[in-house]
């Protein structure tokens, strides 16, 4: 051994270097994990903000009285009027193919927008209306700089001719991007520029309502029984082991259960938020039970003794005194369980909540989809514009998850250290 504590032998130097490396390996691991998180979330956010804007084109539509029968305003061919407006703007386009391309600059939604305007105000007929209409997704992508002219492959290539038209719109200030409120309130669509998340969002809301209504009461009752009343015996041990294992069963298996039992045996409506919520409830149940038991365990025994000591029955002591104190903790667990359920996709695919839903669902039994499933569906679409929508939908989903987790934290903070 060395004689001094300050003298570093080569051996000691090596050991200290190893110590240094070891610590840095730990830091590095954390940095990699967090770095991945940051890259993933920020790149999705960067992709997604684009969806908040939508390109619009201004058209001067002549509402030709010859084309519109004032008695049946709704029936008129507004698509043709829109096309005429485009034709009037670019009179030199004569070839049929080129015309079709010209019409392709704007979304098919334009005709409906026009119709609505006219139905609302029939006096417009005969006048020329300045109308901002939604541009097609290809134009939108071009304006946002995601495709350079001629670069996008396949049939969606933007030709030089189309570039000329767009440039002309640009020059006269007839093309601009506006806040895309449509994305938030409309349902799904085959056309990326028209697609929105509302139908999926409502599907998720309905499913979560069902999920909460089923899993929360059942979960806390089971937790109260197991924690406060269950005698320690083989049966209750079995229940406990069973719950712990259920918490680790892959979510897709719950989907299979829902398909075999809820749909095929009970004949409940396929694709409905009712069944989706039921499957999610089964999945969240173990989480809620485990969290609720922890919350009950945190209530000090003195509370129980105090209640029992003044002659309350065990049930009274539990429901009047213990359970109310544990409620915030149980609620926190339930919210975290709901947050998990909100992000769950696989079991919903099994029970058919993967449909193309245009209309916003209004009940628990009509076909619906859910936000994460919508993300899955859009992620599969080839159009570049859907990439933006997918990312934006992910951001919306993450915002909801963050809100739910904040709610859970707030509840926990507010009620912690009460006893």
């Amino acid at each position, binding site marked *: 051994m060395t*004689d001094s*504590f*300050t003298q570093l032998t080569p051996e*000691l130097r090596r050991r200290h270097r190893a110590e240094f490396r070891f610590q840095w390996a730990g830091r590095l691991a954390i940095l990699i994990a967090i770095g991945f998180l940051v890259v993933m979330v920020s790149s999705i956010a960067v992709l997604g903000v684009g969806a908040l804007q939508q390109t619009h084109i201004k058209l001067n539509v002549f509402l030709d009285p010859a084309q519109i029968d004032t008695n049946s305003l709704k029936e008129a061919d507004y698509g043709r009027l829109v096309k005429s407006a485009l034709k009037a703007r670019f009179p030199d386009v004569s070839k049929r193919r080129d015309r079709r391309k010209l019409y392709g600059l704007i979304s098919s939604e334009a005709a409906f927008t026009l119709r609505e305007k006219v139905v609302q105000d029939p006096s417009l007929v005969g006048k020329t209306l300045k109308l901002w209409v939604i541009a097609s997704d290809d134009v939108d992508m071009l304006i946002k700089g995601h495709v350079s002219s001629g670069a996008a492959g396949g049939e969606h290539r933007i030709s030089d001719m189309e570039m000329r038209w767009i440039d002309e719109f640009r020059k006269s200030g007839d093309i601009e991007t506006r806040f895309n409120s449509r994305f938030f309130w409309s349902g799904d669509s085959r056309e990326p520029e028209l697609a929105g998340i509302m139908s999926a969002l409502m599907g998720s809301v309905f499913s979560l309502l069902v999920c909460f209504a089923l899993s929360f009461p059942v979960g806390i009752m089971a937790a109260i029984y197991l924690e406060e009343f269950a005698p320690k015996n083989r049966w209750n041990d079995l229940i406990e082991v069973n719950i712990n294992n259920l918490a680790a069963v892959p979510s897709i298996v719950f989907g299979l259960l829902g398909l075999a039992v809820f749909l095929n045996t009970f004949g409940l409506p396929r694709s409905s938020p009712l069944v989706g919520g039921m499957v999610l409830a089964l999945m969240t149940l173990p989480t809620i039970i485990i969290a609720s038991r922890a919350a009950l365990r945190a209530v000090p025994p003195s509370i129980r003794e105090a209640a029992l000591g003044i002659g309350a029955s065990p049930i009274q002591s539990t429901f009047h005194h213990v359970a109310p104190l544990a409620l915030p903790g149980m609620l926190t667990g339930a919210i975290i369980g709901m947050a998990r359920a909100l992000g769950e996709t696989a079991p919903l695919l099994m029970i058919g909540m993967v449909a193309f839903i245009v209309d916003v669902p209004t009940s628990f039994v009509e076909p619906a989809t859910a936000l994460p499933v919508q993300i899955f569906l859009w992620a599969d679409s080839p159009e570049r514009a859907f990439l933006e929508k997918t990312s934006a939908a992910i951001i919306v989903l993450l915002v909801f998850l963050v809100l739910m987790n904040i709610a859970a934290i707030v509840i926990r903070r507010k009620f912690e250290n009460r006893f």
Partner: protein
Amino acid sequence: MSTPELKQQVYAENHAEAQAIHPIISARNVSVFYGENKALNDLSLDVPANQVTSLIGPSGCGKTTFLRCLNRMNDLIDICRVEGEILVADQDIYDPAVDVVTLRAHVGMVFQKANPFPKSIFENVAYGLRIHGLTNSKSELEGRVEHSLKRAGLWAEVSDRLDHSGTGLSGGQQQRLCIARTIAVEPRVILMDETCSALDPIATAKIEELMDELREKFTIIIVTHSMHQAARVSQHTAFFHMGELVEHGRTEQIFTSPRDKRTESYITGRIG
């Protein structure tokens, strides 16, 4: 006599005596704080080499704190702060240049509760030798493990089951295993914190015997709550009280003619 003066005098006396036998450890004006709390107050003490020194005093008076300062185990407690100077073999161990790893190899520690690693008996003893790279060959390693176990008086009991887990031994055997593990790296000083407090009289007797043999090669500092043990095994005794070193001297002197009233009351069982 007022306390500071007494302290001065006590220190001067035992300093002179310790000088004569060469102090391996000397603490100068050491104060230790846990956050705001002062656990040791301006303590000065010389520990003679190749002797057994025992630290006695009522619970919470700072014995463990002092012991853990001597091999800087206190570094592990974030809020702990040490002032003053502690010299081990004339080197200030709180000097930033000091390498704690080397220091701890020189100043080993045996804890109150036996804490064998959950490894085989052999691996427990070989651990220190391996990490410090003290042996060059397998046979040398085996030799030193055997030697350490023999010196710790455990060899006869475990020689046939070296590959069994160290945690499977009895309490007293575990404690001797920990001693073997500590002496295997040949430290100069062994710190023992209430090493026998959980043991029966027979196991205690064995370890006390062991201390007496070990002091030929090592300097031993023990913390004990047993006056009898202090009297039996140590040549020097230091009495702590509420973070102060009240008195220090040869064991016979402390036990037969203590200078301080507090020492006397403690030894005769009136406080503590």
